[in-house]
């Protein structure tokens, strides 16, 4: 497991991964990345979340079994990429932009 804060918009990183799976949950054979403030910890009140160290810039990545060079290549391009429309939105969105998930979700 890895957790890190980004200087830029964490949503751009989620939208920018191509090999890494942009999904909640963890511990799978494939690498998963998610934005806790939007998904896994969305149900926790904002103040409680932040005081527990879960900042809005934090990303959580569950490292899987892919080759580490392939993971590094995908992660660095996602961290460096300018804001872009995602290939697939997390939920239906007329604008093609990612949609914030309003309710609680998995870990």
């Amino acid at each position, binding site marked *: 497991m890895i957790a890190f804060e980004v200087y830029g918009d964490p949503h751009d990183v989620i939208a920018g991964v191509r090999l890494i799976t942009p999904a909640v949950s963890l*511990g799978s054979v494939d690498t998963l990345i998610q934005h806790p403030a939007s998904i896994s910890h969305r149900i926790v009140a904002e103040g409680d979340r932040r005081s527990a160290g879960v900042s809005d810039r934090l990303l959580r990545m569950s490292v899987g079994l892919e080759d*580490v060079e392939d993971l590094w290549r995908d992660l660095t391009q996602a*961290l*460096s990429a300018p804001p872009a429309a995602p290939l697939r939105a997390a939920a239906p969105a007329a604008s093609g932009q990612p949609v914030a998930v309003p309710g609680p979700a998995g*870990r």
Partner: protein
Amino acid sequence: MDAMDHGLSVTLRALATEAVHAGREDLAGLGLHAPPLDLSTTYPSYDARAEAARIDEFATTGARLDGPPVYARLDNPTVARFEEALARLEGAEAAVAFASGMAALTAVLLARASQGLRHVVAVRPLYGCSDHLLDAGLLGTEVTWTDPAGIADAIRPDTGLVMVESPANPTLAEADIRAIAHSCGSVPLLVDNTFATPVLQRPVEQGARIVLHSATKYLGGHGDVMGGVVACDEEFARTLRQVRFATGGVLHPLAGYLLLRGLSTLPVRVRAASSSAAELVRRLATDPGSPASTTRGSAAR
């Protein structure tokens, strides 16, 4: 009960060996290689008096039934193999499986609250829905949030549980489980071990009485099975089985089968993923062009 009887007689083996063989010791004697998948919801019997006696026994003690489980909400032989294996990996006497990690946590809270112990002391952060279940008091419990140093002072006469998650979701903050267990006194400490798995951390050895897993994660390992499990002593497991029987949050036998299968590769998967995670953390922390600020890796020991 064959699997369990065989298991108890087995001498101490390395974790990687247990991961492959625990819960399966009787298979060769049965002439089988893969564990049988029992999908029965009910178990026929021509002797209703004997079944009544067995139900009374379960209702009184919560001990696993000898022979067919009467009805699938009491027990399932395939799920029991997963429970036996997970208990062995955690170094616990028993394990009780549930439909999800949240169903498992719910059963623990109900087990304690039903004894009049409705107060919980907990350390943030926890997984978001664990936080929510405690904070909203959905099960009639009351929570006091504290840091590890404040646990002893937060405990009251009606405190039934102290809960921590280490490494914590999602910050990967780690807690000193042994020190926290000491602070708990006679109140049982629950450690959510979903992130570390028994490959990297065995909380029972550090004084925790209850170990919680979202089995959906590393234990299953392939994103295709949802489940939860509690590893604990047999006394508390009996209460959990009674709660599971009454509230119905059972693990499906196919999920039990897949989780047992997942356990066999758990040590290999966790070590491989940890190695890659450690390398990514090293690069994120040292790459001058890296757009990540603070980085924290875990389960990389």
